[in-house]
């Protein structure tokens, strides 16, 4: 066991240089989500009451698949960062904080992958 303080352990090593990664990624995904969400809302409104065939044809077009996958990826990364920020601020206690943050990471990954696979299946497997 070392008698050195934790400050003594880390002094002189400099910063980890990753302090702004989450904040920067939160803003980068936010910028990407501005046009992507507007596209989604306009697309959904434009397809109100459409038949399955019409909807399926739209969902299978290369543009739709590309934008939908980008929306899902950036959206779930943005959601994970935001939810983690809320948990970091309001959940106290090391154990419950770690467990809830890990649960959020797993859940957002699952929802994102499930939705993305659904898009790909709808596009490539057909009706």
């Amino acid at each position, binding site marked *: 066991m070392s008698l050195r303080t934790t400050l003594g352990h880390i002094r002189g090593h400099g910063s980890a240089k990753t302090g702004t990664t989450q904040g920067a990624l939160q*803003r980068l995904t*936010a910028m990407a989500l501005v046009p992507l969400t507007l596209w989604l809302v306009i697309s959904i409104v*434009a397809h109100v009451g459409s038949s399955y065939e019409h*909807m399926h044809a739209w969902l299978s077009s290369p543009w739709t698949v590309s934008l939908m996958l980008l929306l899902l990826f950036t959206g779930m990364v943005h*959601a994970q960062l*935001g939810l983690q920020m809320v948990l970091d601020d309001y959940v106290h206690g090391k154990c419950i904080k770690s467990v809830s943050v890990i649960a959020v990471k797993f859940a*957002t990954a699952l929802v994102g992958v499930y939705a993305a696979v*659904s*898009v790909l299946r*709808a596009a490539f497997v057909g009706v």
Partner: protein
Amino acid sequence: MTSRTRPLSPHLQVYRLPMLALMSITHRATGVVLAIGSLLLAFWLAAAAYGPDAYAFAAALIGSPIGYLVLLGFTVALYYHLFNGIRHLVWDAGWGFEIPQAYKSGYIVLVATAALTVLTWAIGLSI
């Protein structure tokens, strides 16, 4: 313990939060709501992938009165988070930090949220 009888500073719930503080916490709340709303998007995409029957079921569920109410809630949350998010990006760029400017941009966000929600539903329902 004489300190027990000394006055305590009022808790957060005692204060009437100023508009800017309310808008700040609402940004977080709508963010959490939208993260939950991603489940609905995943459900809808999965229904499209499973075929016409599953899609008809999902469309009927979303088209029910409760489905419309949930969708209306997500529309408000989405527009609020989108416009207030742009406000945050503008702040990140270093613009609009004065308190009168913050109030002005806050009112713009609220008016834009209400206007776009009404516009989106007016177009959606008229199609």
